[in-house]
């Protein structure tokens, strides 16, 4: 009798398990397998062992650019996105008129499609008719005008600015939630003891918000590893492959050039890098309750 009821309990898991396993888990393992072959999807697979990987790391310059760009992106996110998100969160943690309006105002771009944001920012960076160059001309700083996303040296940073505009609201909200859980007495005490705002922030606020920081840093690194839409929409990886990321290069190899082995190998590299970040995070999430 008891056994029977147990079995029916597992039935509740079946739909999620089947759907998730068939689309996420089995394909993940199949990708590991495909990455060991040279294959265009039509002709028979040719087993090449780890050649796809060694090719990537030792003879594929574009792959190395993509890898470097992802690392740059992570660094930029951890410095700029987090600093601005924290700044805004501190601002909106104060009581003032219009607070909830401004909070929503800065959050709103996060609800937009990234492709849409990409089109918007293409207008910002347009060398002839874009806001930035037009504005620089307006204030007589013509010499600072640039081709922005068409300039391989700075294109990635330009795209990052667009991504920051779009996504800063999300860590802002997380920080704000963290700030609101801080015990008021502790902050008061620091003030009474004569600690400066600056000092209070780094010695009291930050340590107390450790949990929030873990979540924000983990989610920011994960999304930095996945950066795709904004690049696809703004430069498609150009000019001269200077803005390729692992995700865009994987897509190009697998879906444009039909190099399925190489494409999946790039995805596996992404996966391994993510696992290194994700496992501690998953353990933390599962434990924290």
């Amino acid at each position: 009798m008891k056994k029977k009821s147990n079995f029916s309990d597992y039935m509740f898991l079946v739909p999620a398990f089947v759907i998730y396993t068939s689309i996420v888990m089995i394909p993940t393992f199949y990708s590991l397998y495909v990455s060991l072959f040279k294959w265009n999807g039509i002709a028979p697979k040719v087993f090449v062992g780890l050649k796809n990987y060694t090719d990537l790391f030792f003879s594929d310059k574009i792959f190395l650019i993509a890898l470097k760009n992802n690392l740059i992106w992570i660094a930029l996110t951890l410095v700029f996105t987090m600093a601005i998100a924290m700044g805004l969160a501190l601002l909106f943690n104060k009581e003032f008129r219009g607070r909830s309006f401004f909070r929503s105002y800065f959050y709103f771009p996060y609800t937009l499609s990234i492709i849409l944001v990409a089109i918007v920012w293409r207008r910002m960076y347009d060398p002839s008719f874009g806001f930035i160059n037009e504005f620089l001309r307006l204030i007589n700083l013509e010499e600072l005008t640039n081709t922005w996303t068409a300039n391989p040296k700075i294109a990635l940073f330009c795209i990052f600015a667009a991504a920051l505009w779009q996504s800063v609201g999300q860590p802002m909200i997380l920080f704000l939630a963290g700030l609101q859980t801080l015990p008021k007495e502790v902050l008061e005490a620091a003030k009474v003891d004569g600690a400066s705002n600056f000092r209070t922030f780094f010695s009291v606020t930050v340590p107390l918000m450790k949990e929030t920081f873990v979540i924000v840093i983990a989610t920011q690194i994960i999304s930095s590893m996945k950066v795709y839409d904004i690049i696809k929409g703004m430069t498609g990886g150009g000019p001269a492959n200077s803005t390729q990321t692992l995700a865009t290069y994987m897509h190009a190899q697998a879906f444009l050039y039909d190099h399925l082995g190489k494409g999946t190998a790039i995805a596996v590299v992404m996966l391994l890098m993510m696992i290194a970040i994700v496992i501690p995070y998953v353990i933390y999430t599962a434990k924290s309750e």
Partner: protein
Amino acid sequence: MKKRINKVFFYVALFAIAAIWFTPILTIILTSLKSQADFFSGSTLFQLPTKIHWENFVEAVKVGNLFTYMRNGLIVSFIKVPLGILVEALAAFAITRLSVKYKTAIFIYFLFGMMLPMQISLVPINIMFKHLQLHNTYLGLCYAYIAFGTGFGILVLRGFFNAIPREIDEAAKIDGCNKFQLLTKIILPISKPAIATLFIIDFLGTWNEFLLASVIINKTNLKTVPTGLMSFIGEYTINYGVMSAGVLISIIPVLLVFLFFQRYFVEGLSGAVKQ
């Protein structure tokens, strides 16, 4: 007096940041009012054209198929989101309130999907869908979306279900509820706030999804908004004004959803993470 000056300074700074944040949208608005000729006549972005070109908006809808993309986005979202929440609720219910073994392990198994890069399963999905002829079908697209959504959904619902007192289960059992009824008649109605939050976040997530949609759907009349907008970029026949008008039009539905449900984003999301 000092307090007053501080306050003025505070608002000036706030409005300055807000103004900078608005420049992309301002650019799109200014561009949307102009014809291609206005740009090449030498007038700057900041000068209004002699004649406002409202027809850009009409053109964007007609040539850009915008309403088709929006309709498709609604169809996909309204299939995916409720079904996804049902599937996630069943699983979250099992790992919070039923006698299932290895609950934490099962939970972690689903959590992985939330963080794995979608790229890792993209090639196999593409091959599988080719065999099953699921390309250019909403069945295929929604099935894949539900799969990728399970991690987050279970995370949110599990947190909420755990917070509901266990005594309720006993009471329901005594009143003759079976397990399925316990879920549908008691747990789900209590969880309305969590489900509402999940619904809104999931809806926008589905509405805005690009990568998977671009791999599975390539027929223009089936595209959703992001993949549809992407073809704006490629189309040289569409000029800047029309493109910008199209962008503004496609912001409107999202803006409306946001205005109506903003408390779910701002409060719900942080709640989900804490639980």
